[in-house]
């Protein structure tokens, strides 16, 4: 078992593995995006109160979920990297950060576009919106810290401690709508009991959620491959790849 983990954690092995995995992630991702968007934007009925504008949830909600999912995953990588000193964990977290930041940005922007007609304002400083904005700054902070420190190992350790400190924000984002009075409505799906959304609207949302997840892993795998090549550019196996004409 340990031997297997060691082999899996080696950049060279993972580079090949990620390459084989890529089409198996990318193709279902494209199909699910097409199906989810069609179901969500064409098939699903309008909302009893919000009419057609509610359809932005098919982008807003999955990206908000992913913004938190990616962060938690990065914190897990940080933990693995700090305790077991696995090189691959650093590569995975570094490659994840811009994707997670993009999801966060997308969630904030779509929420703002939704808020203007529904609430009557682009932005309010309520607990949910503010904590999501802090998440965006945590992503920026992680990226900035990593590139600000010259020594790669020190940079990674400092950045992973920042990641672990920021984990406290994740439950705050999730429970903000329950702990405090906010303008943002409480959870529709991620709660105990029945989701407060009609089945015909729920199915496209779940399809989109899976599509977003696959999108993340597709982009992650190709970014990780690029990151590995860049880091291992002086090793023999990369040189062989280059001279063999495989790149």
């Amino acid at each position, binding site marked *: 078992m340990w031997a297997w983990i060691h082999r899996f954690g080696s950049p060279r092995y993972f580079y090949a593995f990620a390459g084989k995995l890529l089409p198996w992630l990318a193709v279902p991702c494209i199909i699910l995006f097409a199906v989810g968007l069609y179901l969500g934007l064409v098939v699903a*009925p*309008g909302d009893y*109160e919000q009419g057609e504008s*509610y359809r932005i949830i098919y982008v807003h909600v999955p990206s908000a979920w992913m913004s938190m999912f990616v962060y938690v995953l990065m914190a897990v990588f940080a933990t693995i990297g700090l305790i077991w000193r696995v090189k691959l964990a650093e590569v995975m977290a570094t490659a994840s950060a811009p994707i997670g930041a993009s999801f966060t940005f997308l969630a904030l922007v779509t929420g703002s576009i939704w808020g203007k007609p529904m609430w*009557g304002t682009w932005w309010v400083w309520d607990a949910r919106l503010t904590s999501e904005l802090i998440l965006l700054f945590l992503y920026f902070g992680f990226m900035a810290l990593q590139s600000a420190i010259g020594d790669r190992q020190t940079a990674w350790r400092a950045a992973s401690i920042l990641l*672990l400190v920021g984990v*406290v924000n994740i439950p705050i984002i999730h429970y903000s709508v329950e702990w405090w009075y906010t303008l943002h409505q409480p959870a529709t799906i991620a709660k105990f009991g029945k989701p407060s959304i009609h089945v015909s609207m729920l199915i496209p949302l779940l399809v989109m959620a899976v599509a977003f997840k696959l999108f993340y892993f597709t982009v992650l795998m190709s970014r990780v491959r690029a990151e590995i090549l860049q880091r291992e550019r002086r090793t023999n196996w990369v040189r062989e790849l280059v001279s063999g004409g495989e790149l």
Partner: protein
Amino acid sequence: MRTRRKQRLFMVVFLVVGIGIAVTLMLNAFKQNILFFFTPSQVAAGEAPVGHPFRIGGLVAVNSVVREDGSLVVHFDVTDTANAVRVAYEGILPDLFREGQGIVTKGQLDDKGVFVASEVLAKHDENYMPPEAAEALKAASTLQQD
């Protein structure tokens, strides 16, 4: 697990738990400041700040909306079913504003106890359903009441 790794694991757990406790304490201390709005009951109990603007959140009471002719001035009650606050507002209301709808309004209490609003935001709920489903639900609940 070797001792070095155990030590590092301990450090990570200590860091996360420590920060968690610190932030919990902090958020508890600032509880009042994080609240986006007060409820009408809190206003009735005198918990809302006097002399400077704050927000009230609640439902627009049914049959309370009165529009003045020839202007954008509108009066309505915001209620949490226990208590209600009379609100006066001049301006354009959001699309979702209607009787029975959740809203958040910003303004100040005048000496007559009327809340003079400078901003009215609609707060939509977490329920999503097609109009037919909403109709059916409504019909079912009126049937039950009869």
